[in-house]
């Protein structure tokens, strides 16, 4: 039985990051996602949400259970109205950083999920959409 779960979480401070990770883990466990995929998903969540907090001062996360044919999974949409990313291709390269970090955030997150899409408008904000299948 596919579940209909839709949730909204605000990321305004570091503590929200911990809450968001735990909540995503709970939902992932509820739809029967395996422990390794759960861990990959919450790690990707942590990377993207932290980026949002650090570079855009916060934003919003939408969590939704998605079914496509026989596949079931979790989709997360991260939205902020921060400064935007001028060069997305560069931001998606391993080791590229403007903020004294390892620069693994976005490219690393992409490797941990099944689908990854990023849209950004300079001056308006950034949207990152990720999807992780239960058995993928």
């Amino acid at each position, binding site marked *: 039985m596919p579940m209909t779960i839709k949730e909204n979480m605000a990321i305004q401070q*570091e503590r929200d*990051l911990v809450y968001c990770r735990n909540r995503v883990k709970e939902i992932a466990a509820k739809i029967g996602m395996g422990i390794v995929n759960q861990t*990959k998903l919450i790690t990707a969540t942590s990377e993207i949400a932290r980026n949002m907090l650090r570079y855009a001062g916060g934003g919003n996360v939408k969590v939704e259970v998605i079914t496509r044919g026989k596949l079931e999974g979790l989709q997360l949409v991260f939205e902020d109205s921060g400064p935007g990313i001028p060069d997305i291709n560069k931001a998606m390269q391993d080791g590229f950083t403007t903020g004294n*970090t390892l620069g*693994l955030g976005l*490219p690393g997150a992409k490797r941990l999920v099944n689908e990854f899409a990023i849209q950004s408008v300079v001056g308006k904000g950034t949207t990152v959409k990720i999807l992780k299948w239960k058995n993928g």
Partner: protein
Amino acid sequence: MERIPILKMGRFLLVTIQVDLYDRLALTLEEDLVQMVYDTGASGVLIDISALSIVDSFMGRIIGNIAGMSSIMDAETVVVGMQPAVAITLIELGLPLAGVHTALNVERGMALLESRMSARPDDTSDADDD
């Protein structure tokens, strides 16, 4: 302010991370631990992360930092008890923690540190004869 306790066990320091690490807490731990290595002259640091269900690139960086900083203060760092799912995720993320020693649990980590101490050629101060 919340802090993660650091225990001194002989020549080594032991940190058991039991709570969810948020960034400020991790940074505080880095600071406290390096200060403690200096104050106690410890020759090894054990970080038990068996209770952690997530290590992302930020926490990975902190662990790398602690190892690097301790190392130039002549203390070795061993990360112990990493969960399988966390290990697989870290590798996929692209963070193999190359400069850090690892062990299955605290006991093995302690044994690893002991054996590395006794293998040191210049460390004659308190080493038994090999």
